């Protein structure tokens, strides 16, 4: 639409840049012609084409939130080694695409000199996909980048190596909005609230649409109530499951709570169809405290899971397959995590998760 005031044409609705203009020439030439790939060492693989061309990929872990100078740094590397092309992965890694094998080691040296790890392939711990957290979100029950940094520092060797039984996909979401595919990961860490929202009674009428606030609750815990002569709502504390849906539609129902916001850990989810069907992660630890800057309780719980998995799983078994084979009771026994009434699903269709048999490993 033309901007008459400035005498310029305003650009709208153009969609994304055409991807074809951003593919390296070797990819353009071999688009759809790839025959197979091999992992040469952790973080490095080669794809071989029908045309006999070989494309080398070096995968580099990054922080997801990055500065403009980081973007310039990686652009310089791309210029030096990759004819000015590079890509990102769905897990916030960088991938440098090389058509010359001899460039692999010099590139890796420079990447590592900048402080960035090469890895995240094959039987490794992938980069943790995560959300915004306290850094930039109002509904967060925890920080995201901080917990992820603390975890990846601790389990760094699993990223740069390939010594796990199979790939482990870890993900972090700072609230139940679960931006990203967090809930179907080998290990999912989720920000949890634990107390009902506070009703700012005198502000509900001005800030919120009361019917949609009531409709937002999945358990009918929000009800209309006149307070001090003003239309407002009340929360049935016995029903509330602390999901934060009502706060999402009504700013006068803040749910953040410094004492009670924390983190839950779910395990054994996957999105791939290989061998077993995609499945959600299941609850291992219902709540751990927010303890910045290093969240030691979360680190310990994840360490417990990773070590038990490493010791117990057979080669090629994802976390879900390992637990399926040994059974959940044994998972709780090995890890020492307490099994509580919170672990038994009492939400809609939750009853379907009961064990309707005599099957038990006694």
């Amino acid at each position, binding site marked *: 639409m033309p901007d008459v005031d400035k005498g310029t044409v*305003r650009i709208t609705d*153009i969609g*994304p*840049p055409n*991807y074809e203009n951003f*593919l390296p020439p070797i*990819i353009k030439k071999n688009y759809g012609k*790839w*025959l*197979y790939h091999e992992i040469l060492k952790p973080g490095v693989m080669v*794809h071989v084409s029908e045309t006999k061309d070989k494309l080398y990929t070096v995968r580099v872990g*990054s*922080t*997801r*939130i*990055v500065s*403009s100078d*980081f*973007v*310039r740094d*990686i*652009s310089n590397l791309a*210029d030096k080694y990759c004819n000015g*092309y590079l*890509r990102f992965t*769905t897990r916030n890694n960088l991938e440098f695409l090389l058509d010359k094998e001899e460039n692999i080691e010099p590139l890796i040296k420079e990447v590592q000199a900048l402080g*960035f*790890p090469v890895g995240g392939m094959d039987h490794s711990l992938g980069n943790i996909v995560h959300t915004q*957290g*306290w*850094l*930039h*979100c109002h509904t967060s029950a925890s*920080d995201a980048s*901080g917990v992820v*940094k603390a975890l*990846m520092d601790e389990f760094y060797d699993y*990223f740069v190596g390939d010594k796990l039984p199979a790939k482990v996909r870890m993900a972090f979401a700072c609230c139940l*909005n679960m*931006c990203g*595919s967090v809930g*179907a990961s080998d290990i999912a860490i989720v920000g949890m609230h634990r107390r009902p929202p506070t009703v700012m009674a005198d502000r509900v009428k001005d800030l919120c649409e009361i019917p*949609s606030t009531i409709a*937002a609750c*999945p358990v009918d815990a929000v009800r209309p109530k006149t307070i001090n002569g003003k239309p407002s709502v009340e929360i049935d504390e016995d029903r509330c499951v602390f999901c934060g849906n009502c706060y999402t539609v009504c700013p006068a129902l*803040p749910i*953040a709570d*410094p*004492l009670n916001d924390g983190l839950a850990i779910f395990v054994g989810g996957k*999105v*791939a*169809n*290989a*061998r077993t069907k*995609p499945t*959600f992660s299941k609850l291992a630890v219902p709540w751990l405290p927010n303890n*910045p*800057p290093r969240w030691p309780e979360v680190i310990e719980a994840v360490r417990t899971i990773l070590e038990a998995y490493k010791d117990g799983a057979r080669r*090629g078994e994802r976390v879900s397959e390992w637990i399926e084979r040994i059974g959940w009771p044994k998972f709780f026994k090995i890890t020492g995590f307490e099994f509580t009434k919170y672990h038994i699903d009492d939400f*809609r269709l939750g009853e379907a998760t009961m064990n309707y048999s005599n099957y038990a490993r006694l």
Partner: protein
Amino acid sequence: MAGTKHKTPLLDDLKEGKWPSFVKELERAAQKSPRTDDLIGLLEKSYRDHIPHWKHGGMAGVKGYGAGIVGRFSDSPEDFPGTQEYHTARINQIEGFFYTSDVLRKLADICDEHAGGLFNFHGSTGDIQILGFKQKEAEELFQKCAQLGFDLGGSGSALRTPSCCVGPARCEWANYDTLHVTDNLTREFQNEMHRPTFNYKFKIKCAGCPNDCIASGARSDLSIVGVWKDNIRIDQDQVAEYAKKFDIKKYVVDKCPTHCMDYTDDKLTIDDSNCVKCMHCINSMPKALRPGLQKGAQIRIGAKVPMVQGPRLGFILVPFYDINKDKEEDYTFLKDLIQKIWDFWDEYGTSRERIGELIQRVGVGNFLEAIELEPLPEMVEHPRANPFIKFEEYLVADEEEESKEG
């Protein structure tokens, strides 16, 4: 010289350690951007207080669009004035996340000039996110990006920017052109992405094979997954090579979920009629096994996160269709199907009800009728066990019929 004017003992701890530090990234950006310096101060405050310091609500956007800009207003502007407004722009990623250094540098310049010098590469849905601008800067930021060829992505009750795996650009397992479909749908549905008219968000993701590297089946309302129909291609010489490296029976054959493989006398055979295309054998021996030649896509529907009525995975809506032929027809089948789904959602969905929740509420059978798809056994884990069937027809005796007419 890194550092911040704020005292940040908690965040300083996260500058240590082997993994790259996001705090260092924040500080690098803060060197050029005082408002990002205040962002660091605000985050340190959250680390002390254990709660977020962003206000709920407040509008930000650009003229003519209702989506693409996410307003962020801090609750502590007096202490951290730079964070009073610190908005996010969702910018369409390039399909497959491919970039050139040239375009990245230009984005970096825009981000320094018009925002806080901070990016997410990428946000969870797939967009590039530029962080840290004020409402009054939004239009210029948007137009600078547009001049570079980048449009805004979706947010709120709109179509979210579709995204895809690396596809045929660098993967031998892509059964269709994920980049092309994603690009095509994104262009087709510009209005649905920029101007929210839906009940809630709608996500489309394109995966080239059932490994689903874009996690479409767990988080996109419409998940398009590449698959083949005919026989897995076997190179017996390469199978023999793998046999030297590991026990094929133990690690491949015995792990097949439908036991449709056999390895005897150094020969691998597959009963492809019983193969569910799980990818395990192909993943294990990429040099020896390849997907078949009759390639196409499956469509799954209804995946979502816990909000509002609980999490759901997507179920099969279309077990197989020839998306490669549909490509020649500009994806007519796919676009018609999407339009029918949206029409139904528009007609019957309630506020903040995702398509998966609506289907649950009205029943899959009714949904299928509305979008004119036949029920298929591939859609279910098993047929119903409970007998409470809502029959929609019954027979009447002849005399009854007559007396009614009489």
